[in-house]
């Protein structure tokens, strides 16, 4: 494949890489798995790039391919051993930004999200990214009504996990 295409792609991806990191954050729980999934999403994006026509935004397209990879295409590699838990390594946020209760609450929330199934995580992810129901329904291939209903159920489920 030609160099220019390669260059454009890598440049765009570098700019928007946060999207992939966020998907990885929801679907993996340690550093190695994060990198592994990141790599697979990057490969899938690159493979699909020739078909990307630019009729949607590059970032919108990334959400779709990223989630598809996480939900469907990705195979967890067994050869990698579990290393340190993520939470306290990569995404440590300065303690002074939070009062204790809020931080505690957030930690519980993130843990609760990790307990959701793959599809529910996808919904939460798109919600957190401020996607409207039309985009959510198109990304997952369900109707808008069903997306709404499911989102409400996910919220209820999260509440239940938090207050059993």
């Amino acid at each position: 494949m030609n160099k220019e295409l390669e260059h454009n792609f890598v440049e765009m991806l570098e700019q928007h890489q946060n999207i992939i990191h966020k998907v990885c954050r929801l679907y993996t729980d340690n550093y190695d798995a994060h990198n592994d999934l990141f790599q697979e999403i990057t490969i899938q994006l690159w493979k699909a790039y020739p078909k990307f026509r630019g009729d949607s935004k590059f970032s919108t397209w990334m959400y779709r391919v990223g989630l598809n990879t996480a939900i469907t295409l990705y195979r967890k590699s067994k050869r990698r051993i579990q290393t340190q838990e993520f939470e306290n390594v990569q995404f440590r946020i300065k303690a002074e930004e939070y009062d204790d209760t809020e931080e505690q609450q957030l930690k519980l929330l993130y843990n609760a999200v990790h307990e959701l199934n793959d599809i529910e995580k996808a919904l939460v992810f798109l919600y957190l990214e401020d996607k409207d129901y039309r985009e959510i329904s198109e990304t997952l291939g369900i109707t808008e009504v069903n997306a709404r209903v499911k989102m409400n159920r996910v919220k209820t489920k999260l509440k239940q996990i938090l207050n059993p």
Partner: protein
Amino acid sequence: MELLKKDWKKQDNSYPKLSYDEIYKMILKKSSSIVKWIFIISLLEFVFWFVISFALKDTDAMEHYKKFDADAVLIPLAIIGYVILAYFFYLFYRNYRRISATDSAKTLMENILKTRRSVKYYVGFNLFYLVLSTVLFLWLEFDQDTIMINKVNEAAANGEAFKLYAVIILTTIVLLAIVIALLLGFYWLVYGILLKRLNHNYKELKKLEV
């Protein structure tokens, strides 16, 4: 949820930043997605049945059957086998090409399952073909093999013709069943492991539609 959203946005700067070169290196690496695995395993299946049909062709046993007056049955059987192989391979390839990470999650899953299904039908056909050929060959044995006919006549003289038939047919059935069970067990294991997550997520999405 709102709290979570606020925090989620705050963290935008806390993610690792990969450089241009790091990303560039990634796109040169090989994918290890399940689609690739399904493709490899499916190809192996096609090769497996193809090799088997060729390996059996020139064995002594086949020479033995070629002496019989059975071309009218054996030749069409072979031709049907190859035509169906070609058809399934075309189907498999077409479905494989349709898989695109750019589709919606549901369409993507459906296309993967379709690709998998075309191979499944092919395997099913082969098992059926195996049973059919066995029955045919058994019939040829009884009908045309002089040694076998003599044995049957001898047994009939002793009043044991039924016993002889029963033993041969039962043995064949048991052997066939073992082979089929082994093959099915193998497929079940390989695809079960490979598609567990996909099937689970697909069901989850389907459930939303009821």
